[in-house]
């Protein structure tokens, strides 16, 4: 008698990895110990005054953990010992969104191929140190190219398990 393997995988069977996974020139791991902020300001100068440092102005630009996502929006990923001033009373919004998202890190020569399996952008042309919000299949992500072969992918917590498994599924084909 032939055993027929189950092909349907229910959502309940999907697990978010706690240990890094390695294979086919790619290493997938969770970026832990991060603090995240969403910052909004119509005038970047007011925000710079609150933070006491410059913020990148060009969309897609990053500077020491701060990524410019839109003309009035910035996303911050820093080690969790950082605490940013909130700028109370000023026309800025600095909100701690650490619990909202998780960071997945793809490293190695095959990392680009894994990301390209579901992202419509031409990521090969994305410069090192650039970050952008985009989609992976239908899941919204922020992709951050930290080095030539190192990509940090921010994804909302509820999508993270799916994204982790989508990356796993793409890894054997990465070259």
């Amino acid at each position, binding site marked *: 008698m032939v055993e027929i393997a189950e092909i349907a995988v229910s959502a309940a069977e999907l697990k978010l990895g706690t240990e890094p996974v390695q294979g086919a020139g790619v290493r997938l791991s969770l970026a832990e110990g991060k603090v995240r902020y969403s910052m909004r300001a119509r005038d970047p100068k007011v925000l710079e005054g609150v933070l006491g440092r410059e913020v990148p102005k060009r*969309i*897609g630009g990053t500077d020491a953990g701060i990524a410019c*996502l*839109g*003309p009035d*929006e910035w996303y911050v990923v820093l080690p969790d010992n950082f605490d940013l001033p909130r700028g109370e009373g000023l026309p800025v919004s600095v909100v701690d969104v650490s619990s909202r998202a998780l960071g997945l890190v793809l490293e190695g020569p095959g990392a680009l191929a894994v990301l390209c399996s579901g992202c*419509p*952008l031409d990521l090969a042309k994305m410069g090192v140190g650039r970050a*952008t*919000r*985009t*989609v992976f299949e239908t899941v*919204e992500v922020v992709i951050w190219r930290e080095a030539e072969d190192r990509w940090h992918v921010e994804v909302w917590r509820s999508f993270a398990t799916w994204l982790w498994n989508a990356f796993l599924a793409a890894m054997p084909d990465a070259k």
Partner: protein
Amino acid sequence: MLLIHCPYCDEARPEVEFAYGGEAHIARPVDPSTYSDEQWEEFLYIRSNPRGRHHERWRHTHGCGRFFNAVRDTVSDVFETTYKAGEARK
């Protein structure tokens, strides 16, 4: 894949990042209470629906998040140009 030029990002980006936002340059009445039912109906529902050049709003939802305006040919689906919200009709 259809690429749309986002005037804020200043990049051609894939269509799946965008959301369509209906016809552009329809100003909300300053004082709606003075409007008759017919005028209100026209503001809410009546659109030009042209064959050819169409001014429309798009939002770069999965990108910079901004609304902008575009001129698209409704027959060929070619984007003639895109420009920032608030700029004059092109």
